[in-house]
């Protein structure tokens, strides 16, 4: 007798619900804003991050310790999800977490391009994908971009990297398109409609952010189209092409036709900074996955909800600590938080 949908997801969903209960509650973030960095580090050191803070405490200090502990915890948490899941859930989680491989490759290439030190690059590496930390350490030691690309020749990401001709943006676009393309294929092959719906919404939100940034920067239509990722739920390629060709004010007005308008409608008049828009879109993405994960509790959605929520937690903590370190006003830090 084959396993039913409920049985397939019961174990992993119960586990991620348990793990989600251990995330820092959103009421804590305003309190963090009133704390100093040592206080926040102490709080974090007594929470779920204790093991990581203790382990890395000998090697790093201050905000570096914080950064490394967050990254290590994020990587281990995601790796745990891969280890405790089975069959279809395992396949989807593994494919989805390849995001961090793409992230690491981009981080290393950008670091090498800008001449950053190995330690600085390592600070932003999160080994939550299929590339192991030890392999990433070796790759970081390579001095040139070409060398890094050659070291990745046996990975599935090589086809996106092999066309490097001195422009990093091109291979970064290739990587993004390859990642989302293979995710859509994974969703279609597993016939998981919930996953596909979530993924297509994520692609829409990503495209929307790209459009806002590029339109603000006054980029040409052709340049913008190259960056957009096909496969969204509301924005098809024709609509993306149309939006990319409009000037900024008309582009904002054209968004009224789409469901995402309600997310940004009240701040559409004050677009001096895109921070608010991006935070709103991130928040919408988080609320959307949390909401639909309650509609379909025995599916992959609660797992994806946890993955997104955990990333937001780490991002929020990093924003607070980095913001406090650079003495940014509280309002600006608050504007960046997704909660």
């Amino acid at each position: 007798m084959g396993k039913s949908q409920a049985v397939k997801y019961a174990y992993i969903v119960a586990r991620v619900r348990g793990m989600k209960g251990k995330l820092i509650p959103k009421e804590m973030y305003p309190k963090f804003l009133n704390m100093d960095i040592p206080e926040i580090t102490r709080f974090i050191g007594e929470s779920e991050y204790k093991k990581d803070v203790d382990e890395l405490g000998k090697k790093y200090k201050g905000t570096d310790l914080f950064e490394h502990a967050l990254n290590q915890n994020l990587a281990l948490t995601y790796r745990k999800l891969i280890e405790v899941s089975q069959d279809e859930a395992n396949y989807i989680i593994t494919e989805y977490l390849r995001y961090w491989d793409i992230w690491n490759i981009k981080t290393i290439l950008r670091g090498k391009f800008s001449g950053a030190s190995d330690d600085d690059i390592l600070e932003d590496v999160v080994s939550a994908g299929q590339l192991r930390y030890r392999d990433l350490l070796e790759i970081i030691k390579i001095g040139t971009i070409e060398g890094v690309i050659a070291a990745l020749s046996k990975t599935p990401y090589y086809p996106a990297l092999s066309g490097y001709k001195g422009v990093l943006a091109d291979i970064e676009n290739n990587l993004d398109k390859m990642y989302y393309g293979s995710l859509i294929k994974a969703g279609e092959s597993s016939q998981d409609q919930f996953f596909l719906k979530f993924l297509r919404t994520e692609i829409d939100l990503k495209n929307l952010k790209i459009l806002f940034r590029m339109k603000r920067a006054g980029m040409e239509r052709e340049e913008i189209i190259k960056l957009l990722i096909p496969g969204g739920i509301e924005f098809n390629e024709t609509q993306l092409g149309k939006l990319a060709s409009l000037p900024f004010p008309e582009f904002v007005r054209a968004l009224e036709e789409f469901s995402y308008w309600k997310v940004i409608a009240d701040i559409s008049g004050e677009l001096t900074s895109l921070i608010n828009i991006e935070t709103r879109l991130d928040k919408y993405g988080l609320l959307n996955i949390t909401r639909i994960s309650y509609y379909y509790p025995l599916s992959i959605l609660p797992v994806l909800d946890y993955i997104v929520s955990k990333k937001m937690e780490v991002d929020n903590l990093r924003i607070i600590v980095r913001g406090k370190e650079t003495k940014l006003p509280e309002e600006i830090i608050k504007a960046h938080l997704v909660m």
Partner: protein
Amino acid sequence: MVDPSVLDPSMVAANAKGMIAIGAGIAVGLCGIGAGMGEQAIGAAAVGAMAEDEKFFGKGLLMTVIPESIAIFGLVVALILLFVF
């Protein structure tokens, strides 16, 4: 011509008893399968929750045995069949 053994009252009573026993067996068996199907998802979820938090053991155990009531219903029906009829 009718086979005289079919109309033998002792044979008829034995057949009826056999049918009741089969009925009781089916009641317990099907209820057991039903309870098992209900328990598999709950059991998996309970183990998952316990892996994250040991305090869930009591609640998890309780949740897991709730579908067991179906098996008890089957047992009751079987006992009624066996001892009332």
